[in-house]
């Protein structure tokens, strides 16, 4: 096998389509994971067992089943009795939902790390619960967990090829279909490099952020 730059040239248009899809899935998936994870984490500290229990069950269930199975379920089973979504939308929701159960744990650790005295001071001032969360607890908790959240973005990036299986052709999906059509291998290599080029600077950025937050806190 020899490396053929013409194949690379042919792949490029589809490669960029794939990159765009990967980034879309990553950004939107992360937004879902970050916000939904926060909802889970706060709900897990609810005073009401009727809120805590279902949330615990849902998050444990999602965290302990494979993302691939969840994607199939969302794409093939949910439309039977619910809305039918495009493969990209399904993929984004699947990634976001799956990773929200991990970010929930991250937030939970961050919230647990806020000293009890902060809750007590909020009580002593009669701050409403919502204000206590928004102005006192979360600003301190989230600051601690930004690096850990970043690590899950990278993990999500590395899981993103799974959405190709339900037809959302992100960069790996594009490479696979291109290679199958042309009996070539160059596209896989390009995509492998592309993953590194996205993931490595991202992890450097996270480390930098980690150091900055450590200094200023």
């Amino acid at each position, binding site marked *: 096998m020899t490396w053929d730059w013409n194949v690379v040239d042919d792949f490029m248009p589809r490669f960029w389509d794939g990159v765009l899809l990967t980034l879309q899935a990553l950004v939107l998936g992360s937004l879902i994971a970050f916000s939904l994870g926060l909802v889970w984490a706060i709900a897990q500290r609810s005073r009401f067992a009727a809120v805590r229990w279902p949330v615990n069950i849902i998050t444990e269930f999602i965290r302990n089943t494979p993302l691939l199975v969840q994607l199939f379920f969302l794409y093939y089973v949910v439309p039977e009795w619910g809305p039918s979504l495009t493969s990209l939308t399904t993929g984004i929701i699947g990634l976001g939902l799956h990773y929200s159960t991990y970010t929930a744990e991250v937030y939970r650790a961050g919230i647990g790390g806020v*000293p009890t*005295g*902060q809750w*007590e*001071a909020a*009580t*002593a*001032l*009669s*701050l*409403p619960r919502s*204000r206590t969360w928004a*102005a*006192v607890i979360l*600003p*301190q908790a989230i*600051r601690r967990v930004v690096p850990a959240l970043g690590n899950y973005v990278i993990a999500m990036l590395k899981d993103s090829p799974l959405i190709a299986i339900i037809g959302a052709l992100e960069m790996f999906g594009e490479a696979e279909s291109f290679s199958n059509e042309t009996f070539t291998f160059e596209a896989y290599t390009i995509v492998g490099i592309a993953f590194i080029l996205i993931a490595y600077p991202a992890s450097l950025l996270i480390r930098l952020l980690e150091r900055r937050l450590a200094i200023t806190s």
Partner: protein
Amino acid sequence: MPSPADTPRDSNSASRANGAELVRFDKVTKRFGDVTVLDQLDFSVDTGKHVTLIGPSGSGKTTILRLLMTLLTPDEGTIKVDGDYLNHEERNGTLAKAGEKHVREVRKKIGMVFQQFNLFPNMKVLRNVTEAPVHVLGMSKDEADQRARELIELVGLSEQLDKYPSQLSGGQQQRVAIARALAMRPQVLLLDEVTSALDPELVAGVLDVLRDIAHTTDITMLVVTHEMSFARDISDAVLMFDRGKIVESGPPDKMFSEPEHERTREFLSTVL
């Protein structure tokens, strides 16, 4: 120094007679597991009085403050603040567990300063003091700002308005915490070993501020402290606790000079 216009009684004097009971504990019992920290405790504090609780650690002093601040709930008995039950509500003639709204209303009359300050580290000094007046009392931002500046001046920290708590010394943080508690215009101020976490050279500054507040305002104070000379300066009454019960009480001069109870004498010999 600004006039102590923040004292609750100035704004509220019509509704309460001086000397009326502001806090009352009625047969309050609090247990932690098998340990009974407070045992059928009865006591009351009159409006405007400064009462200091002394006693060995574990005798229940801090528990009393934490019960009043609703950081703990009593296992038995009732607590009244300014005539209202703190943890209970009267419904159809019987006492039931109070709803959150009721607790919140009664609790607003109480302010607390903690041993560990517990300032909000993500907020600057000024905002630490304005946060609750704006979001709990519904004060306008400008008014809260204005009042916070006065209180911060009262505790001698006008230069530090724009700093974060982490940029202040422990003593300065504690003075901000005092301003923050006063900003809510509480009728009762609870001071829970407020100098215990401070370096020795910072203690005096905090105590001076508190002495000043005690002498120039009419605010009611409940104080847990190991600073006996401070207690002597500001107290109208001293209560000696041991194993969840009051063993002796009286004016500070008598309590410190000629205590009657053996336990009080023992305790004082260890701290004086």
